[in-house]
């Protein structure tokens, strides 16, 4: 058996990590937070040169044609580095296109993804609460697509979007070229100050059908796996920050890392990460192997990774004490990103219920 990433995939990850270590990280995040740019354009150039957007695009469309494993590991590095580029959104868009797009749609958009000239985004939410599988208000009328999607990560930077739309058996996917007046994108303020979000107002917009309800559910699972790796990367960075501080900060004549109050918190961060990692890797395998376990693995990976991230982001502040609560501290990036990822694809309750439903179905089949 081989329940691990291939050495090639690891090497690909290492390359990306070296790049992000050099180019991204909290300072780059701060530049976006303070300046008004939707993303870091020069970093995006580097990302394109590394072939990251092209990663999953088939060679026929000018891409690298790598598998799900590589995509997951890149998602982890995006999470770790907080890289302020619309890569995650473009990757989710790409997976939707690969899983549910027609040959024409793929031929139309994938080359641009591969050469970095096209930025994609993914629209689930509709302002208020929105269970990903519940029926969206956005719907097709005789005049076109009507509704609005918000908050959509990187929408203000994107050229094209995949959005969920009301269908007969649940939400379906549609493709919207954002270069049309009927699809107006405006920025929305969110808790995450490093990943700008936008609102897409669809006023009888031209949109192409892309995937039915099943395809939509499948894309949701794949998005959940990728997001789980992103969350694990962010959690790992927050944990490293907490551990480094605990090794260094002195209180009452000793490094605070000596106190079990601190030490056991750090151990819990690690434990939660390993549980999340195990499920996320299971998801990466099911994703790549098109295995039926994908649904349960995706749900478990999402719940476990967001629990790990929320706990670590909160206790990282706690462990830093006063300084961790300041604007200057980098603790806030993880604290805020944890909110972004939790809101992205539906609530914890939705996913843990989805996990149990899948387990129940499995039990019935087994019985």
């Amino acid at each position: 058996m081989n329940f691990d990433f291939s050495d090639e995939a690891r090497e690909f990850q290492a390359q990306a990590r070296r790049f992000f270590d050099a180019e991204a990280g909290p300072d780059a995040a701060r530049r976006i937070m303070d300046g008004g740019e939707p993303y870091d354009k020069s970093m995006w150039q580097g990302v394109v040169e590394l072939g990251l957007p092209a990663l999953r695009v088939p060679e026929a469309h000018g891409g690298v044609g790598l598998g799900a494993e590589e995509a997951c590991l890149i998602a982890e590095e995006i999470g770790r580095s907080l890289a302020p580029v619309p890569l995650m959104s473009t990757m989710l868009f790409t997976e939707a296109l690969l899983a549910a797009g027609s040959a024409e749609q793929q031929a139309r958009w994938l080359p641009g993804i591969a050469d970095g000239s096209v930025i994609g985004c993914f629209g689930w939410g509709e302002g208020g609460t929105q269970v990903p599988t519940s029926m969206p208000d956005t719907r097709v009328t005789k005049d076109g697509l009507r509704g609005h999607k918000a908050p959509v990560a990187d929408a203000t930077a994107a050229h094209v979007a995949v959005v969920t739309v009301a269908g007969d058996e649940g939400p379906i996917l549609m493709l919207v070229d954002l270069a049309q007046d009927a699809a107006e994108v405006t920025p929305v303020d969110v808790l995450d100050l490093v990943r700008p979000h936008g609102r897409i107002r669809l006023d009888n917009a031209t949109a192409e059908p892309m995937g039915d309800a099943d395809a939509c559910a499948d894309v949701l699972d794949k998005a959940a796996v990728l997001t789980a790796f992103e969350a694990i990367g962010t959690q790992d960075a927050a944990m490293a920050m907490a551990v480094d501080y605990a090794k260094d900060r002195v209180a009452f004549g000793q490094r605070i890392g000596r106190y079990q109050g601190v030490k056991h918190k750090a151990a819990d961060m690690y434990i939660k990460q390993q549980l999340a990692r195990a499920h996320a890797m299971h998801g990466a395998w099911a994703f790549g192997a098109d295995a039926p376990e994908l649904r349960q693995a995706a749900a478990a990976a999402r719940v476990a990774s967001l629990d790990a991230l929320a706990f670590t982001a909160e206790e990282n502040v706690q462990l830093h004490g006063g300084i961790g609560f300041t604007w200057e501290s980098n603790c806030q990036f993880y604290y805020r990103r944890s909110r972004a990822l939790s809101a992205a694809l539906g609530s914890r309750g939705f996913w843990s219920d989805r996990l149990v439903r899948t387990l129940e179905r499995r039990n019935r089949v087994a019985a």
Partner: protein
Amino acid sequence: MDFNDSPEEAKIREEVRAWIKDAAAEYEGLPAPASREEFVARQKSWQKKKYDAGHAGITWPKKFGGQGKGPMESIIFSQEEGKSPAPTALYAIGLGMCIPTVFTHGNQDVIDRFVPPSLSGEEIWCQLFSEPAAGSDLAGIRTKAEKDGSDWVINGQKVWTTNAHLCDYGIIVTRTDPSAPKHKGLTMFIVDMRADGVECRPLKQMSGGSDFNEVFFDEVRVPDAWRLGEEGEGWKVALTTLMNERLAVGGKPRYSPDWSTLLDVAKEIETALGPASEQADVRDQVAQAYINDQGVKLTQQRSLSALSQGKTPGPEQSISKVVVAKQMQEISRFALDISESAGFMAADEGSELARLQGSYFGAAGLRIAGGTDEILRNIIAERVLGLPGDLRPPKDTPFNEIEAL
């Protein structure tokens, strides 16, 4: 048992309420102050009214201009004041912590000079204790004060000082003998916040707000007459100040959400199985929020009851902050989670979601301010349950020879 006022308490409350009703009427429905000056002026006007009417320094000894009354009088007054529109933000630290330290440890001249104008509200005070390297371990203070003739010269930095930029004076703990053991080499002074070499910078919090300052001291001169307590006794003096802080019944910040906030938010959320407010996981969180918040309130009632009976409150009070702060973080996170997209988009001023978003950040600070969760658990375990302290380096090590283990 009886949750009602005793006849005397009822009488006091009646009088107080009547006075506050007239006196605070003018603040009813005022818009938020337009400028810092207007804010301060409004605060000062209210303090002056209280002073003139004999409602200032209720528990202070008469000889310091106080009313020499009991804790219940003071508590009843604050309760009624809290229900009124009266502006009460600037004097809690000065009159609650600083000035009691001044009249307990200062010389007569200092008392005569500083106590009356503080009580009347003309002069505003802050407390200068915490430092970047002295948080949980407060005695780790590094700000130096060196003797120079009849003056002391202060150099160093303080952090988390509330309203330092609005204050006229402060009490500051400094290290006057680095070669003495950590707790022995400290001395406390009064410092003029307008003096040369004092610089206040706003300290921006992760939430974006700035409720505190950093204060830098560069060659700031203080007369020896402004010393509070003996040289090297600063730690003991500081403890009395902090004890006064502890007396202030610590509760939940007004803005923080409670069980009903969660219930209201959940009512509006449709899940596959109906409104979220009907789901067992949400209801369980609502119950837990009630148990924690109401449990703390009732525990505070127990302390008030003891005071009302002329007894000393028990140690149960010590649980308040550690319960309230974490509960605030839990309920905020949970409510934002179930609110999904809406919980993540910056919510409209004054909406319940905005309150929850503010609390999710505020709670992270509350879990640290005035004693971290970890320090408070140590205190409960050691002082209340009598468990031994953490193993630490020898207490008698000179401060400048302490090495990090």
